[in-house]
C-alpha cells in the first residue's frame, strides 16, 4: 500500500500546512512517509510544490519519480498543470478552480480548467467560495485537503485530529472554520 502525492500551489497558500496534516496522520497510522518541501527564495510568491510519499514499506527517494504520483493536490489550477508528467496514467488531479493571478501572462482560466478536466480523474472545487462559507478565505488549503481526503489512504478521523492539532492554538473560531472547510471540501468532491 502506498500513495505518492504532488502538493502544488503558490508560495504563501498553505501547502506546508496540508503536508503537516498528512505527515502526522500517516505517522499516527504507523506508516512510513517522506515529504520533500520548498523553502527559501521560491516561497516568495513563486510556484511551490511538495513531494509527499506515504507507504507501509520503507521509502527510498524523497522525490517522486515521474509516472509514480497517484495524485496531484493543488491549491491553484495553473499550478496543477505544471506536474502532470509526474502522474500515473490513471492518477487523479484534485485542484481548486480559483486562479491566483500574480503574474502578467496568466492564461485564460477557462482553458486552464479545460486542461485540468482532460485528466481521466479530476476533482475541481471552488475553494474560495467554500472557504468563505466555512468562515475564512484563508482555509482554501484545508478545503482542498478535504476534497482529496476521500481518495487518500489515510483515515478521515486521523486527518481531522491533525487539523485540530494544527489550529487549536489559534482560537476556537479559526479551528472551527478549518474543520468546516475540510467537510465542505470533502462533500464538494463527493458531489462532483
Amino acid at each position, binding site marked *: 500500500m502506498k500513495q505518492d502525492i504532488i502538493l502544488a500551489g*503558490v*508560495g504563501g497558500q498553505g501547502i506546508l500546512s496540508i*503536508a503537516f496534516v498528512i*505527515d*502526522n496522520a500517516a*505517522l499516527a497510522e504507523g506508516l*512510513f*512517509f*517522506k*515529504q*520533500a*518541501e*520548498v*523553502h*527559501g*527564495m*521560491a*516561497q*516568495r*510568491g*513563486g*510556484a511551490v510544490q511538495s513531494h509527499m510519499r506515504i507507504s507501509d*514499506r520503507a*521509502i*527510498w*527517494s*524523497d*522525490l*517522486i*519519480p*515521474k*509516472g*509514480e504520483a497517484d495524485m496531484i493536490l493543488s491549491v491553484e489550477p*495553473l*499550478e496543477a*498543470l*505544471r506536474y*502532470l*508528467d*509526474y*502522474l*500515473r*496514467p490513471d*492518477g487523479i488531479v484534485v485542484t481548486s478552480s480559483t486562479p491566483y493571478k*500574480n*503574474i502578467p*501572462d*496568466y*492564461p485564460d482560466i477557462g*482553458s*486552464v480548467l479545460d*486542461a*485540468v478536466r*482532460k*485528466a481521466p480523474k479530476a476533482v475541481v472545487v471552488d475553494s474560495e467560495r467554500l472557504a468563505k462559507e466555512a468562515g475564512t478565505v484563508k482555509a482554501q488549503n484545508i478545503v482542498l485537503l478535504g476534497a482529496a481526503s476521500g481518495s487518500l489512504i489515510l483515515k478521515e478521523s486521523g486527518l481531522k485530529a491533525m487539523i485540530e492539532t494544527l489550529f487549536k492554538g489559534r482560537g476556537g473560531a479559526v479551528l472551527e472554520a478549518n474543520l468546516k472547510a475540510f467537510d465542505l471540501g470533502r462533500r464538494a468532491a463527493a458531489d462532483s
Partner: protein
Amino acid sequence: MGREILLGDEAVALGAVHAGLSAGYSYPGTPASEIMEFLARLSAERPDLQAAWSVNEKVAYEEALGASYAGKRAMVSFKHVGLNVAADPFMNSALTGANGGLLVVSADDPGMHSSQNEQDSRYYVQFAKIFGYEPADHQEAYDMAREAFDVSERFNVPVLMRLVTRLSHSRSSVETREPRPQNALRAGERRDWTLLPVNARRRFGLLLDRQPELTRFSDQSPFNILSLNDKDRSLGVIASGVGYNYFREAWGPDRELPSYLKVSTYPLPEAKIRDLVGSVETVLVIEDGYPYIESRLKGLFGIAGKTVLGRLSGALPPSGELSPDSVRQALGLGPLPAMAMSGLPLAGRPPQLCAGCPHADTFKALTMALEDLAGAGVFSDIGCYTLGALPPYNAIHTCVCMGASVSMARGASDAGLRPAVSVIGDSTFAHSGITSLLSAAAADVDMTVLILDNATTAMTGGQPSFGSGERLMKIVEGVGVAREHIRTIEPLPKNHERNVAVIREELDHPGLSVIVAVRECIQESRKKRS
C-alpha cells in the same frame, strides 16, 4: 526514546543535542537555516544549551571553535557558500584540532534552488584532510551527527557533515536515542592552538600522519555498505548520499540488485571501493553535486579494463540536482508510463517581492533617480532585494556574494564608472559590508551606498539582524562616512518624490554617501500583528 517528525536539518540538530552539544552557531542561509531555528527553539527551554545566530559564518565558526577549545561539544552550521566565508578558520582548525567535538554542517544546494552556485563541500573535507559524513536519509542524519562528535574527539579533527537541499528540506520520522551528557570544561594544549610556523608545521605533520587512520575508520564504517553480486559482474554502482536513495528507488524491489557500494563517509573507503571496482566491468557513480568520487576513480588515466560512468562521462547530467528519473536513465531503465503534459503553455511563476514590500518602493525611487544616467552601475547583494533584478524592477546589475556590492561599487568608481551605486540589506551589511564601507570611507570614494534596513534577515525567514536601526546608523557614522552624507528615507509610495530627490542629491555628491532606507519587512510586521 521515540519517533519524531523532523526535517533533515532538524535531525542533524537533534542528533547533535543528543550527543551532548553545548553550543551551536550559525548564519542563516537556505538550505541550512532550519538547523539553528530548531536549536534556538530547544535552547529557549534549555539554559545549558547555547544556540546563537552569528553575524556571519566566519564569526560563527570561530565561536564554535572557541567552545571546542574550552572542551565542550560545539556545532557550526551554514549553507555551502557560507563555508567559503568561514574557510580561513575552517582550514586552520584542521591543524589545531578540536578539544571538545566540533561538527561543521555545510548544506549544499545542487540545482541552485536558492544559491549562486552548486559547489560541493566534499572537496573541503579533502582540502582540510579531515573526516566527513554524507547522510542519505533522516535517520542517518541523526545517527551521524551523534557519532560525529565522538569521531572529532577521537581523531582530534573537526568533522564536516555535508547535507544537500533535498535532505535538509525533506521531512520524515526519526527514531531517537537516550541523550548523552554534555562535556565538562577541559583544558587543552595551548601550543597546539597557536599556529606559529613552528607549531603549525608540527600540527600539519600530525594531521598528515593521521590520514591512514581516518581512511581505515572510513573503510570500517557501517554507514558504507558494500554488497557484491557474484552472479552478474557486468555493472557495479557506487552511490553516495541521496544518490543511493535514487538508485534503490529506480532499481525497485523486484529485481536482484547489482553489486553496489553506498558511500557515506570521507576520506573515501578505499578498500571497499577496490573490492567493488575489482569485481565488476562497468562502474556507475551516482552522486549529487560535483563528480567527486567519479573523478577520484578515474584520475588522469582511468582504470585499465574498466568503464567508469557518471556525471563526467555524460551518463548523468553534468550539473543540477539528481532525480530518480535521471538515475533511472543512467541505469538503463526506461521511463515509467506517465500522463502527458496538457500542451497548454504554462506561464512561469518566478518568486517575487511581496505586495507592500519596502524594497519595491526603494527600487522605484532609485530607478527614477537614475533615469537620465545611462552609465550607472548598480551593484547589489544577497537577499530578497536580489529579486530587484527581475521585472518589473530591473533595478540592479549584480549579485555575487555577501557584502560584495559595497566593495564592487568602490572598484567600479575607482575605474571611472559614475554613478557607482551599492544596494545592500541591513543583515548582509552587518555580515560583510562593514569592512567594505570602512575601506570606501577611508578613501572617500565617489559612490552611493543604499542600505535597505528592513530590520530582519528576510529571505531566510526572518532571523535577527545585527546591523539595524540605531546601531546601523552608529556603524555607518563610526566607519567614517561624513555625517552630512548619511541620509535616511522611508520607502513608502507617499514619499516617492522626496526619496528620488534625496537619492539624486547624494548621487551628485562627488564623495561617499550612505542612504539608509528604513521600513520594516512586511512579513515581519504581519507576524507581529497576528
